[in-house]
């Protein structure tokens, strides 16, 4: 008979050790590869952070947001302007930009989150469009379509991550930290409340959960992740322009979220790696590349509707009898 402790260890191995090991393996592979592979996997890590935040709002809380790119833009431009024009430490610029994005999310989210369903989706979509237009039109600050170049890489004080491979190590650390925080939040009282809201808003309210406040908090958390991803992009590439944070970012992040597994811990990471790396594996197919790529995505969504992370749940495990509560186990 399997003891609860064994089951818990097995869950820990499957839910933490294996995914972390897989992420580290991909990163080690990248570090031993060419600069191009490093760039692709670096983008995947940045997107994984962005989508982890999106997953918090959409997967755990059950809300729709098509405007998270707005907060990525705030992070990206914030970091670019503060570290490029005003010579702030990139890390400080990243943190301040995140704080600014969080405040903006709270101000904008307060009225917006009173909407539901399609109306909320459209309102958040408008948020992304407005930010996009501002980044084009406010040329004095953003240089419009020309974008901002010469953004310094991440670093603190005199120490600077001078190479892409060093940056990739930092991105991996940011990603694992982001996933860890997301998991801790999900398993907290706050996270349980969000999942209750996703289950049924009236039922959550009837249990004493302040639904409006928690939805706003989840929106702010997602904005912090998006801003962090935007800042990391700016420091990783050294250049940003409005297109980087345009509608394509929204579509791509949605694809990653659903493909990887919405509402799962590692789905965003798997989705980001899959969506960005698959085209590279299919490059040899030349003109058929896009067709095969699309077919693979559609097949995954048909045969793994809960995403690739959801397939892990299908792996049979020995099930323990009803586990006693910690108090009983004492």
């Amino acid at each position, binding site marked *: 008979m399997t003891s609860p402790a064994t089951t818990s260890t097995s869950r820990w191995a499957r839910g933490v050790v294996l995914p972390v090991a897989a992420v580290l393996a991909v990163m080690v592979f990248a570090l031993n590869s060419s600069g191009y592979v490093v760039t692709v996997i670096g983008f995947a890590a940045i997107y994984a952070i962005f989508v982890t935040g999106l997953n918090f709002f959409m997967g755990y809380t059950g809300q729709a947001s098509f405007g998270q790119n707005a907060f990525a833009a705030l992070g990206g431009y914030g970091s670019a302007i503060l570290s490029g024009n005003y010579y702030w430490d990139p890390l400080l610029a990243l943190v301040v930009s995140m704080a600014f994005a969080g405040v903006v999310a709270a101000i904008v989210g307060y009225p917006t989150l009173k909407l539901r369903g399609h109306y909320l989706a459209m309102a958040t979509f408008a948020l992304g469009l407005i930010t996009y237009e501002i980044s084009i039109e406010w040329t004095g600050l953003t240089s419009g379509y020309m974008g901002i170049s010469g953004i310094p890489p991440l670093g603190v004080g005199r120490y600077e991550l001078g190479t892409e491979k060093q940056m990739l190590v930092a991105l991996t650390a940011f990603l694992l930290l982001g996933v860890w925080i997301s998991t801790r939040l999900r398993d907290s009282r706050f996270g*349980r409340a969000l999942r209750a809201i996703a289950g049924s808003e009236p039922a959550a*309210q009837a*249990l004493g959960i302040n639904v409006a406040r928690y939805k706003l908090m989840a929106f702010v958390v997602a904005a912090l992740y998006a801003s962090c991803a935007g800042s990391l992009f700016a420091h990783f590439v050294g250049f940003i322009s409005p297109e980087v944070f345009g509608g394509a970012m929204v579509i791509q992040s949605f694809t990653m979220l659903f493909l990887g597994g919405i509402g799962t811990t590692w789905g965003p990471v798997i989705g980001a790696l899959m969506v960005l790396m698959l085209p590279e594996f299919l490059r040899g197919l030349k003109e058929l590349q896009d067709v095969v790529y699309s077919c693979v995505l559609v097949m995954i969504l048909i045969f793994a509707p809960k995403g690739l992370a959801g397939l892990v749940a299908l792996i049979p495990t020995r099930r323990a009898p*009803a586990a006693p509560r910690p108090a009983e186990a004492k």
Partner: protein
Amino acid sequence: MSASPPPLIEARDLAASYGRVQALKPTSLSVAEGELVTVLGPNGAGKSTMLRAMMRLTSASGRVLFRGRDITGLSTHDRAKEGIILVMEGRGLFSQMTVRENLVLGAYTLTGDETVDGRLDGVFRLFPRLKERYEQVAGSLSGGEQQMLAVGRAIMAKPKLLMLDEPSLGLAPRVASEILETLGELNRQGLGILLVEQKAPQALRLAQRVYVLSLGGIVAELPASEIKSHHDLSRYYLH
């Protein structure tokens, strides 16, 4: 001479509409401390709307007083924090979460792990089957077990008033009886209960008072013991 204590909950001229359709005409009712009151009525009588209006899950006119204090302006979650807990029609469980997670969420307004553990023990005494299903996903439970979980989750909140919307709906008579017996036990411990049912002889046996709701309005209010003497009511609701 001391004044009589205010009712546990009192609705005054509570009315609600869905668009142009008035689902609940101005209705007044009350539940005293430690009282079990049953609201009976056929489908579409406005029973669920009345409970939702009392919980402010539906916008309504009129006033709601809790232990004499006007709580009309309080939001749903603040009413829950006051100790007014509603077991919704359809149970309102979080089907993707486990029994444990559902129960812990029930204690959301309480603080401190010890309190939660203590409440869990109380729930398991009432519904031992929930303990056996502790790590099982709520959506995979049988209908009866789901209803036990819904009631158990409500009890986790340490309610002062428990409102239930047709808890026996769709359940086998034996399971429904088990759940209603538990409600009776809770009431004997001093918990005020407002129980809405369509047709439930057992609910009437447990109740001290009965309201009969029809076409969105209360058509009768009487002690439960007197319902037998009302031929029409007893024919419809006791058989």
